[in-house]
Structure formats: structure tokens, C-alpha cells
């Protein structure tokens, strides 16, 4: 006699492997969107710090919008908008792009603060040595200013890593999506969520440790 087909089965070792693969997806989404968002955000922050009027009105407004609207709304809205305007892309890339832009809006403000914290005397010192404006930025203002706000940037990066869970609404099998699927199957929400949470912690903890290490190094 055949065994009865069961739609529900307990959490097994294989599921741990599923979650590990999903954690890998979360990591890739986060690394891509944080990297792109950071580069873009520093550029935006620089523009904001330099052009007080035009920058503040146009770019500042757009970035404020991205910072103010809940990420989950942005994800659903833009993912569908991409489809409507014929830029259909899979949930992975849509997630990376939207999360990246969101990150850049957060980083822009952090970066602006750092760049503006490097005062006129320090910039004059660079220029008086014959460095051009861009050379002064590259070798003096950015290294000093961005290091000063590095702890805030780490906060943004860890936040985005956790917020990447929202990409699950687009259906990409990242950590939270897979965890929810497993809960449906195993009916063991506490266990599955605890394991998924442990994976998020395992991704975040090395970052914050490494950041702390860098800060100590720069302070000495």
C-alpha cells in the first residue's frame, strides 16, 4: 500500500540547506545594492554639499521622497511600474535596483554631513599646496569626511541588509521568502524563524565586527 501523501512535513536538514542558499541570495542582494547605493549616495552627498540651492531643491527633494516612503511600497510600486513601461525584469534585479536607490538616499545624507564637516581651512590647505579642486576632494576632503561618518554608514548598511527581507514581496527566494515557504510546509514557525534570524545575525555580525576593527585602526 502506498504511503499517504503528506503536504506537511517537519523541518529537516535539507531545509537548513534551503535557508543557507536563501541567505546567500540575501547576501548577494545586499552586497550589490549597498555597494551601488554607497557609490551613488556619496556622489549625491557631494552634489548636495556643493550646490546649496539647485541641489537642495531638486535632488534633495527626490532623495527625501525615497527616504520617507516605506520601502515595501517602493518595491511593489516600482516593480510593477517597470513592467508597465516595458522594462520588465526579474524580481532579483528589480529588488537590487530599488534597494540600491533607497540606500543611496540614506547614504547621501550621511556623506553630505561628512563632507561638510571638513571645513574651509582644511580645503584651503590642500589648495594652497597646488592640489586642484578634485585632487583636494579625492585626497583630503573625502577621506577625512567619510571616515568621520563611517559609523553612521555601517548603521545604514546593516539596516539595508535587514530591509532586504522586504524583497520577498516580489517573490525572489531570499531568506525571508524561503522562511515563510518553509513555515507553510512545516508548520513550525518558531523554529524556522529562529533559524532565519540566526542567518541574518550571521551576516550582520562580521560586518559590525570588521567595522569596529577599522574604526579602532583609524583612531590610532
Amino acid at each position: 500500500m502506498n504511503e499517504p501523501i503528506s503536504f506537511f512535513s517537519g523541518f529537516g536538514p535539507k531545509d537548513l540547506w534551503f535557508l543557507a542558499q536563501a541567505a546567500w541570495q540575501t547576501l548577494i542582494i545586499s552586497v550589490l545594492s549597498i555597494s551601488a547605493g554607497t557609490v551613488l549616495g556619496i556622489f549625491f552627498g557631494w552634489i548636495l554639499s556643493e550646490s546649496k540651492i539647485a541641489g537642495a531643491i531638486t535632488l534633495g527633494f527626490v532623495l527625501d521622497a525615497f527616504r520617507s516612503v516605506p520601502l515595501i511600497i517602493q518595491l511593489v510600486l516600482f516593480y510593477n511600474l517597470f513592467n508597465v513601461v516595458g522594462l520588465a525584469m526579474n524580481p532579483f534585479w528589480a529588488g537590487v535596483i530599488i534597494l540600491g536607490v533607497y540606500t543611496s538616499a540614506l547614504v547621501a545624507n550621511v556623506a553630505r554631513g561628512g563632507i561638510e564637516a571638513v571645513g574651509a581651512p582644511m580645503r584651503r590647505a590642500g589648495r594652497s599646496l597646488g592640489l586642484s579642486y578634485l585632487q583636494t576632494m579625492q585626497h583630503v576632503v573625502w577621506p577625512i569626511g567619510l571616515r568621520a561618518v563611517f559609523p553612521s554608514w555601517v548603521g545604514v548598511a546593516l539596516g539595508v541588509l535587514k530591509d532586504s527581507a522586504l524583497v520577498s514581496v516580489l517573490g525572489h527566494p531570499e531568506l525571508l521568502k524561503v522562511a515563510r515557504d518553509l513555515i507553510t510546509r512545516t508548520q513550525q514557525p518558531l523554529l524556522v524563524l529562529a533559524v532565519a534570524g540566526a542567518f541574518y545575525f550571521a551576516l550582520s555580525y562580521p560586518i559590525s565586527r570588521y567595522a569596529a576593527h577599522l574604526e579602532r585602526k583609524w583612531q590610532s
Partner: protein
Amino acid sequence: MIEIKDLHKYFGDLHVLKGIDLNVQKGEVLSIIGASGSGKSTLLYCINGLEAIQKGEVLVDGVSVHAKDTDLNKLRTKMGMVFQQFNSFPHLTALENVALAPKIVKGKSKAEAKEIARAQLEHVGLGDKIDNYPSALSGGQQQRLAIARALAMEPEYMLFDEATSALDPELVGEVLDTMRLLAEEGMTMICVTHEMGFARDVSDRVAYFHQGIMEEIGPPKQIFGEPTSEHTAKFLANVR
């Protein structure tokens, strides 16, 4: 030679420099004294092109600093500048602070730039601090680092903007000694200073600034001994 002709500078409505005429010859040490707000520091910024001017002209070896087609970055390598704030780059070691501009601006190789930096740090007496970050240096050492950083570009002129004003009294001497050393080596220097002893002993000429006007200029003996302007006399009586 530095030639300043009928230089006017405004900050908004504020007339900061009211027609300055001044020539500084190669090898000369000029000290500029005067009360705060008399325009002394602004004059240095105008010479280096860090501030725009509204009228007149500044020529450095015949090149107009404020002309549109002047390559200011190139011209500035002729003029080292030391500020009241030390402005050491905190993310670089003493050696890297000094090596930065030769490497970036003059395109020297890493090894060459380091060699120049080492030599200049020894020149100002910081040979044993090359691997220290500025945070580990005293104010006087940071200011000497700033001097070495300017010297590394092999400037023909050195501009000092109240280089000792931000220092604790016991640290002033070491910076003045370094400036004295440069003067003895024949460096052309313009020093905005509140150190009357330095102005008297080291300068070839002393200029007194009062409310945006150069009231008088002459050898230190005359300025300190028999000033012709009553403003100068009053100022000197107050600082003594």
C-alpha cells in the same frame, strides 16, 4: 618678485583692503603687523589666489594671480603657505602628509616623494616623527609639519598667516626658530605675525596695517624706533 598694485578686496559691503601697493623682492623677509581685522591675513589669501579680488592686480614673478587664464594650481606650487590652524591631514602620517603634494601635483614617484618628505621633515626637526599621525604630535610639531609640507613643493615664496597664534606659549619658540632658519637660508617670506620680537629681529622690512590700509612700511628699526604714523605708534605701545 611679488608685486601688488592698488589691491581692493570686499567681503560683501565690507571694504577689507583699500588699495594696497607693495613689492616684495626675492630673498626679502617682510613682516606684516596690525590689529585683528586690519586685512593682513586677507592680503595673504589674495596673493595665493585663495580669495578673489575686486580691483587691482597681484603679480608673482610677472604672472597675474587673478587673471582668468592663469593656471593657479601651478602658480601655487611657487608659494608655500602656512596657516594659523595647523591643518595637518589627520588620516595621513607625517611622512604621507608631506609626500602627498609632490606625488599628486608634481607627479613624483612614490619613492622620490618619500625621500623629499623625509628630507624636509628632518629639515624642520621632525626626523624622528615620520611615521606618527598628527594626533600624536604637539601643536608646535604639527605646525612644523605644515612648514615641511609647504617646503616639499620647493616654493620660492613662503606665506605665513599668524603661524604661531594658535599655539600654547611654550610651543611658539620652536616654530619661530624654524621660520628663522628659513629666513637665514634666504627664503623669501611674508609673515603676518603678532610676534613683535620675530618681526624686529628677522625681517628686512615691517609693514603696519590699519583698517585695510598699509599705514607704513620700513626697516624694523624705523618702524619700532620712530614710527611716522600715530596709529603705528599707538599699536606698538599697546602690544608692548
